[in-house]
């Protein structure tokens, strides 16, 4: 039996989905579109095996966006590979029935068997909303069940009704006479909905006072901005600082495992493959988990509480100036820690094109993996002198690198809107601000767990295979007997590096840098160790100062500055590309990201190098 959940945004649809299916969920994308497909399964009290699909939230079946088209097409059975639902559960927030009842009246014309689920029935009762369920069911001509998705046993009424209805299914098929509604029909259905509500529901005189009180602070022009900045600051701290110790202990455990392999196995290919290919490959996937868990914990808490819509309200004009959606700021902020959770967080943006724009510019934010590269070069080449007595030149350069990332991201967003989606009219900002609700531990936990699992299964496999590929390039062919140079200098990576070296000559890179950039694709900070390896400096990460000293003798200041400029823009992170592939479902956007970032990096380095040389830093 196939069931589908339909409802307006904020109807508590996801909470109900979580309550019905628990952790038995599969999250994927619909083929060819950046729309999330959530499916789960459960067994009804009478023992029916049911698969449940959570369709994107919508106010109507007109299909204004790819998400809403999915909802329409699944309900109408137009999607190939999706079963026509045997029963459609239309979910409503009981405190706010107006918009859902209108949607339900539209759904009726599709001929699908329907149930109206009055979700959050407890909150409605507490607020003094009283619904005559039997009369409402009569007036609508649709069975109605009440539900409290967040409470144990709160779905009992719905499950009982589901069993009852599935018993008689399939009844005689009803005809689908749905067609897109024009303005007069929409108005007529809304009037009809209002009429039915007036006859069957009595509303309290006063709206929810808690929401009004919180909003008077949270949406206050001054206080609201302060609270938003504070929230963002805490979130940024959490992702950046709290995750760091965890990530370090994870990566040092993987290093330790690698060391054990190194010591137990004889030196050779197998040892190198297990240590540097497999273990460090798995490690480089797992190491992102703390950040992904923390970022989604925050996002889901804020979303469930109802704050996300408020934040979008406050940020709308500010972000809108750069052609970005109000909701893009959380993914972009997360990208300062790491573009991977940032890109995954773009799922909070409903509109596909706004989401793609955000995905494309997220890697330009200065992520934490760039910091080791920046600090290495800055501390080696930039003197720590003070300008005007109080500005540290090293700090100023670091600030400049961050600022360059942000400014170029905003510029790119502008260009993307202009060139790629010129025909596309941005959806005007219209958003429901739902009443505040206490987030539920279980629902948030299921959400975080699903994200983490999805990352490991889907992005993880791609990241892992790229790591193994990079290991292969850096290890084959093996150095000949009696070789004196570092092993990497005989490998395919070196061959590639030396081949592209002439291309990088105009930007001031020597062949050693070109070679180090290949393993540097594994993660930006790996380039530091790789440069050390190429210059045959032993000691890995601890040798950073030593590497710095060697570099000052090998590179000119112009080359160092050029490499800094390169690292602002260059797509030097295979994992980011893998996540873009997974999130957009297409290699096209990976290629686009790679090419535009590479172009920017090359141009920036070229300009930096030549200006620096002209100023006498060559």
């Amino acid at each position, binding site marked *: 039996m196939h069931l589908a959940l339909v409802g307006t945004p904020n109807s508590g649809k996801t909470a109900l989905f979580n309550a019905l299916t628990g952790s038995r969920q599969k999250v994927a994308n619909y083929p060819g579109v950046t729309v999330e497909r959530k499916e789960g399964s459960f067994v009804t009290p009478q023992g029916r095996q049911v698969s449940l699909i959570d369709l994107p939230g919508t*106010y*109507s079946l*007109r299909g*204004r966006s790819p998400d809403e088209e999915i909802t329409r097409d699944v309900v109408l059975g137009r999607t190939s590979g999706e079963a026509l639902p045997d029963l459609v559960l239309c979910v409503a927030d009981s*405190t*706010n029935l*107006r*918009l859902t009842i*209108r949607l339900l009246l539209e759904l009726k014309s599709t001929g699908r068997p329907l149930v109206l689920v009055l979700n959050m029935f407890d909150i409605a009762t507490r607020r003094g909303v009283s619904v005559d369920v039997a009369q409402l069911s009569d007036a609508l001509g649709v069975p109605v069940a009440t539900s409290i998705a967040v409470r144990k046993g709160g779905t009992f009424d719905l499950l009982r009704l589901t069993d009852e209805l599935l018993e008689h299914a399939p009844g005689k098929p009803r005809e689908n006479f749905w067609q897109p*509604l*024009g*303005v007069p029909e*929409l*108005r007529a259905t*809304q*009037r009809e909905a*209002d009429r039915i509500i007036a006859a069957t529901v009595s*509303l309290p005189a006063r*709206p929810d006072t808690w*929401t*009004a009180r919180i*909003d008077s602070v949270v*949406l206050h*022009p001054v206080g*609201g*901005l302060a609270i938003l900045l504070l929230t963002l600051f805490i979130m940024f701290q959490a992702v950046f600082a709290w995750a760091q110790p965890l990530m370090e202990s994870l990566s040092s455990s993987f290093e330790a495992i690698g060391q054990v392999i190194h010591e137990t196995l004889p030196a050779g290919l197998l040892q190198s493959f297990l240590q540097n290919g497999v273990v460090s490959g798995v490690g480089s996937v797992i190491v992102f988990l703390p950040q992904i868990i923390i970022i989604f914990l925050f996002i889901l808490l804020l979303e469930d509480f109802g704050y996300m*819509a408020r934040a*979008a*309200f*406050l940020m*709308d*004009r*500010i972000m809108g100036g750069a052609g970005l959606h109000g909701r893009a700021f959380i993914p972009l902020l997360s990208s300062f820690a790491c573009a991977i959770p940032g890109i995954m967080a773009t799922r909070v943006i409903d509109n596909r094109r706004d989401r793609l724009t955000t995905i494309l510019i997220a890697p330009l934010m200065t992520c934490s993996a760039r910091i080791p590269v920046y600090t290495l070069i800055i501390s080696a080449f930039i003197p720590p002198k003070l300008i005007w007595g109080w500005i540290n030149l090293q700090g100023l350069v670091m600030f400049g690198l961050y600022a360059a990332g942000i400014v170029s991201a905003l510029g790119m967003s502008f260009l993307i809107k202009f060139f790629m989606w010129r025909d596309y*009219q*941005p959806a*005007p*900002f*219209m*958003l*429901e*601000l*739902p*009443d505040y609700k206490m987030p539920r531990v279980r629902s948030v936990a299921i959400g975080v767990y699903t994200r983490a699992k999805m990352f490991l299964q889907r992005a993880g496999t791609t990241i892992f295979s790229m790591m193994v590929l990079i290991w292969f390039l850096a290890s084959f062919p093996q150095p000949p007997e009696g070789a004196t140079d570092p092993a990497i200098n005989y490998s395919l990576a070196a061959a590639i590096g030396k081949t592209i070296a002439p291309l990088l000559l105009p930007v001031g890179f020597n062949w050693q840098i070109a070679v180090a950039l290949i393993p540097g694709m594994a993660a930006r900070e790996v380039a530091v160790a790789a440069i050390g390896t190429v210059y045959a400096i032993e000691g890995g990460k601890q040798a950073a100062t030593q590497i710095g000293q060697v570099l000052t003798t090998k590179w000119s200041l112009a080359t160092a500055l050029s490499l800094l400029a390169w690292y602002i823009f260059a797509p030097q992170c295979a994992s980011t590309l893998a996540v873009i592939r997974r999130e957009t479902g297409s290699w096209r956007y990976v290629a686009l990201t790679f090419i535009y970032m590479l172009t920017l990096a090359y141009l920036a380095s070229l300009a930096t190098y030549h200006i620096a040389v002209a100023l006498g830093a060559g």
Partner: protein
Amino acid sequence: MTKPKEKPHLPLGLARRGFTGVIQHLAASRAGSALSDAELESRLIELGFVDGAKVEVLHEGIVGNDPIAVRVENVTIAVRRREAMAIIVA
């Protein structure tokens, strides 16, 4: 009993915080929105902006007092002033 004074009609896009009124009709052509008139009216109706609905402007945004948060019957909707120009209230 005196007949209540007829309130002047104005677009919701010009209303300030604290304004309360009733929607008279929709006039999408007045909004200058990126959307077509029919599409804008459809979206507004789907969010509950129909004639006769009670509205109250609850909050204003930071930059240029835009967007606005509007209570429409018992739902709160955030909308930009540009689009709110299509909603004629009194």
